[in-house]
């Protein structure tokens, strides 16, 4: 199967500090890939590299077979339109209302009349479960959960095939986090999206991810969810079998619906 994103031999350094040393993995179309790693392991740097926002010191990143590192700016802009990103703290433009945030990319790329823009904005807001009148609010007037949803609505503005999520459930209460996981899964299944998410939330990993990539020792260890849990690497073992993960695992195995 042809991977939709492939990362080959990526090296990232800051001065003498090596963050990534030969990171390699593939993302396949239609899967949900979780990226985990300790604090400071370079998850966000890896995400920025995959997005083409940061040029790696060595190695290549290809999206849909095209190498980001060797592209002209115009080609890169076209690739950037094919994915949506939801940032860790929402990164909503604070001077714009939620509706304007969602519309921004559409206004930049297409010549649309107001009524169509309104209609498409309504679609984005409703598909992420926001009430339409939330569109008139400023980001500072939203709760944490609504900011995450608004960020997701903005990420989905151009009907992307790939969705990058940076810590989508951090800072949410367990009920909102579970609802957000369900939403992501639901959108992913219905729209056949490929989702790459950075997360620390074991619940999210257990319920949504098909495969898990772990950043340890400046490299990636990638496996299916069940496979990674059997991995003998001490950090990974501690991560999935430590005191905080045991309760999650038992409860989610009880509730987990078999994947089709």
């Amino acid at each position, binding site marked *: 199967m042809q991977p939709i994103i492939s990362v080959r031999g990526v090296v990232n350094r800051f001065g003498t500090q090596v963050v990534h040393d030969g990171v390699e993995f593939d993302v396949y179309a239609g899967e949900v890939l979780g990226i985990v790693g300790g604090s400071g392991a370079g998850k966000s740097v890896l995400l920025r590299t995959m997005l083409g926002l940061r040029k790696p010191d060595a190695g290549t990143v290809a999206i849909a077979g095209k190498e980001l590192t060797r592209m002209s700016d115009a080609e890169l802009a076209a690739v950037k339109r094919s994915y949506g990103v939801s940032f860790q703290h929402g990164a909503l433009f604070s001077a714009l209302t939620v509706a304007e945030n969602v519309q921004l990319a559409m206004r930049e790329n297409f010549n*649309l009349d107001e009524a169509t823009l309104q*209609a498409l904005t309504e679609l984005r807001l409703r598909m992420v*479960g926001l009430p339409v009148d939330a569109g008139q609010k400023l*980001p500072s007037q939203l709760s944490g959960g609504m900011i995450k949803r608004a960020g997701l609505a903005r990420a989905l503005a151009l*009907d992307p095939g790939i969705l990058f999520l940076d810590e989508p459930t951090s800072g949410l209460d367990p009920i909102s986090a579970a609802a957000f996981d369900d939403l992501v899964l639901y959108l992913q299944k219905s*729209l056949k999206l490929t989702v790459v998410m950075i997360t620390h939330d074991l619940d999210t990993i257990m319920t949504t991810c098909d495969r898990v990539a772990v950043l340890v020792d400046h490299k990636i260890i990638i496996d299916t969810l069940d496979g990674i849990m059997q991995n003998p690497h001490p950090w990974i073992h501690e991560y999935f079998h430590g005191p905080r993960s045991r309760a999650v695992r038992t409860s989610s195995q009880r509730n987990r619906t078999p994947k089709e």
Partner: protein
Amino acid sequence: MLLNVDRTADGLALALSGDWSIDRIAEIERSLSELDDAAPRAIRVDCSKLGALDLSAVWLLRKRLQRWADAGARIDFLGKRPAHFDFIDEFTKEAEPTPQAVEIPARWAAFLAAFGRFWVQQKERAYLAADYYGRVLMTGAQTLRHPKRLRLPSIARHIYETGIQAVPIVALIAFLITLVIAYIGAQQLKRFGAEIFTVDLVTVGVLREMGVLLTAIIVAGRSGSAFAAEIGVMQLNDEVDALKAMGINPYEALVLPRVIGLVIALPLLTILADAMGLMGGALLCQWLLDVSFPQFVARMQDALAPTTFWAGFIKAPAFAFLIAMTGTYRGMQVRDSSRELGRLTTVAVVQSIFLVILANAVFAIIYLEIDF
């Protein structure tokens, strides 16, 4: 060609073709809006020749079909209905509550309401500002009674940041402005053969007005904005609340050192600006009027009254107080969003400059009355 419309016996047959995706969304919208609004009895939608189909296109198509369906048309799909329809059906199951119509008041009523709201807001603002000044003065009075609570390291830091770091810019600007004023003065006075009075113009002008006013305006731009931004960021990070939670009075820890620091630094900067201004004047008189330095000093001593320097100098602490109070007040007002931070920083600078100029006018009137 995205949409092909055929009339059938009892209605319309829509044949979709090509890519119905967001890249061509404007075309899609156009071809949908060209369709007749009058509802036919039956509509058949043929999706078999479609290339791509994405959610945005389905949403617009569905809205269009919905309007016909509401008007009583029967809608059939040739073959399977695209899956995106089911997805949209799913999340639109719960109908949006229709927004309640807002009653728009009559024009005169709206005007009256805006007028009234303005004055109520003004009253509230005046109250808040008075409250702030009161709190800071009370805190100041308490702290002076227990001088141990005066935060000397903090005050020293603010003297350094607002005073010493501003030395180059204040010196340069005072020098350049006086140069220009002396030049214009000399040119005008030459016509009366009274160019020696340029010295009077420069010395009285600089010492009474220009030195302190220029310094205050520069400092308002530099430090008024810095105060507002520093305290505003602390507000956004909940640092001010953290101080309060530790039982530390933020007025004592944040506001007072800045006010005291600036009240000390600004008069010192004023002396520097006065000196640099006089130097500029002396230099220009030497170049342009052949007034040597000893002559300049002698003439200056004739021109000056004993009060000239003090009339300018005692304004400095008052200006410093206004600038520091405005900057810290606006910083403390920042709430919730970084947008507020930018807005209030601007307000702090504009308002402190305005207050400085206003206070200067008040001083001028008082001096006139008491013949200072």
